[in-house]
């Protein structure tokens, strides 16, 4: 590709401004996390920039506080429950959406999207009220199942788009070689779908762990998840402790990023 050799001044200025804005955006995206990480090693007991000294004390304190550790465990449990439920419910649904031989497969893929299109807080309020009417109070289970329904679409869409690009003749070949549909599914389709399932699992786990909009209405009052605990803490605590909790979460995010790039490759996220 060859852009014109001697671009006019306006052209240079315009493109220069575009690129400057792009760099600014990228800085805006990454700077906050770096600043939080720097603060989390500060030796002073108040939040100030630039940080002074270097200590792991705040991280030690994070794991010494029962409330925080408990909240982390709660969020881990919810995250894992959401992931498992999304795999169990979502993968078969994606299969049906793509391979179903009945009228209404399109309607089904739209139906899966419904809870995801609705604002999280509206779903949260609706589930809270509906639960209360039949005597189900807010709890960790209610939180997990509501978030599952909220993010199921992510899993279905990820697996669905991978499935659409799979060569259907692979299945036919398996059938011609005498495999039952179940055998074909287990030995051919599933291994090929694994990367998509993994990527979906990472994103649904993160949502289960981090979700606030749905969780704030449905979480059990004795089992507060980490984001809810953190929300209260940010408003009341002014030490680098919060930064250290954030540091732990950033580490988790980096692990998730590595997991995604190993499963579908970073470029795969776009589908």
């Amino acid at each position, binding site marked *: 590709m060859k852009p014109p050799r001697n671009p006019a001044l306006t052209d240079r200025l315009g493109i220069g401004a575009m690129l400057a804005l792009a760099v600014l955006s990228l800085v805006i995206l990454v700077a*906050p996390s770096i600043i939080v990480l720097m603060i989390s090693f500060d030796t002073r007991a108040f939040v100030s920039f630039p940080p002074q000294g270097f200590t792991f004390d705040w991280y030690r304190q994070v794991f010494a506080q029962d409330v925080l550790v408990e909240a982390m465990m709660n969020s881990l449990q919810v995250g894992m429950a959401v992931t498992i439920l999304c795999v169990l419910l979502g993968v078969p649904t994606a299969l049906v959406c793509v391979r179903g031989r009945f009228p209404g497969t399109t309607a089904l893929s739209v139906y899966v999207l419904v809870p995801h299109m609705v*604002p999280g807080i509206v779903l949260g309020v609706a589930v809270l009220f509906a639960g209360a009417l039949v005597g189900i109070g807010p709890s960790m289970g209610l939180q997990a199942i509501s978030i599952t329904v909220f993010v199921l679409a992510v899993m279905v869409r990820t697996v669905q788009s991978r499935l659409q690009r799979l060569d259907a003749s692979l299945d036919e070949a398996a059938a011609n070689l005498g495999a*039952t549909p179940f055998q074909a599914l287990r030995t051919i389709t599933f291994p090929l779908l694994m990367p998509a399932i993994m990527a979906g699992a990472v994103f649904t786990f993160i949502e289960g762990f981090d979700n606030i909009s749905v969780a704030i209405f449905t979480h059990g009052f004795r089992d507060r998840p980490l984001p809810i605990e953190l929300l209260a803490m940010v408003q009341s605590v002014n030490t680098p402790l919060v930064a250290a909790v954030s540091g732990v979460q950033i580490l988790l995010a980096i692990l998730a990023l590595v997991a995604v790039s190993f499963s579908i490759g970073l470029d795969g996220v776009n589908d």
Partner: protein
Amino acid sequence: MTASCTRLAARSPTPGLLEAVADKLLSGRGIWPAVPAIIALTVVAVIPFIILLSLGFSQIEMERGTIVSQSFTLDYLINALSDPLYWTTFQRSMTLALTTTVLCLVLGYPVAYLYLIGGRWTRRAILILTIAPLLTSGIVRTYAWLVILGGRGVVNTALMQMGLIDRPLRIVNTHVAVLIGMVQIHLPVMILPLIALMARQDRRLEEASYNLGASRLGTLWHVILPMSAPAIGTGTALVFTLSYTTFVVPQLLGGGNYLNAATMIYEQVVYSLEWSKGSVSALILMASCLVVLTLIAMATSRITRWTKGRDA
């Protein structure tokens, strides 16, 4: 049923009953594998929505926790619509969300352009920088702005060292702080659909444009921008929905008294336990959100059709 079972049996030499059932259920041809998901979606989302709708429009009398009588009423909706607090709150949410969406587009589109013209490593760096924040908690990213904009934060320290101000500026708990936080939180959501489109872009069109003597700016304006209309539509719709209904950023960066639609609903439902009021607010939130989303979708399809028609 029997016929298909014999067919299955013929295909596999020793079909266990279990495997025959699994074949039937899991082949993916019929609706069965999706049934558990359909049930979950119906019970946990659709029925609760219907209940929410009915709560907003019914007069309920309760005695000892059970509903005694229930009758249709528009009172809650009328009360809400005639309450100036509702109007200012929803207006504030709407203005904030629209400003956020526009700013995200202004900041996000250049990143997508850089992705388009960038080499392999530039593209990879942009992807990492865009996806990583999405995997980080919204609270963590908002907290970072408390650190940056706070009394002893990055901005104030820098300004004081430069001697531009004597005392720290009060930035947190203002409209500006909320807006900055909102833009940063939602920026990746705008960028992702844009770079997904750029990755699929046919670059020969650009080349053709250059060969015909167009400048880079001209190519951007006449070729690349019109083609990205669908992705801009997706991005704006996503950012608008999220920022219109967000809870965290206004709560943290606006101080306790920044009331937007989401924080108002939370207070009605959790603190004052006004169910019917909360239901009506949630329904208004959803309805107004849908109106804007429809407008965005209509504008996008108009522009897409127009650019296609112009090319033909």
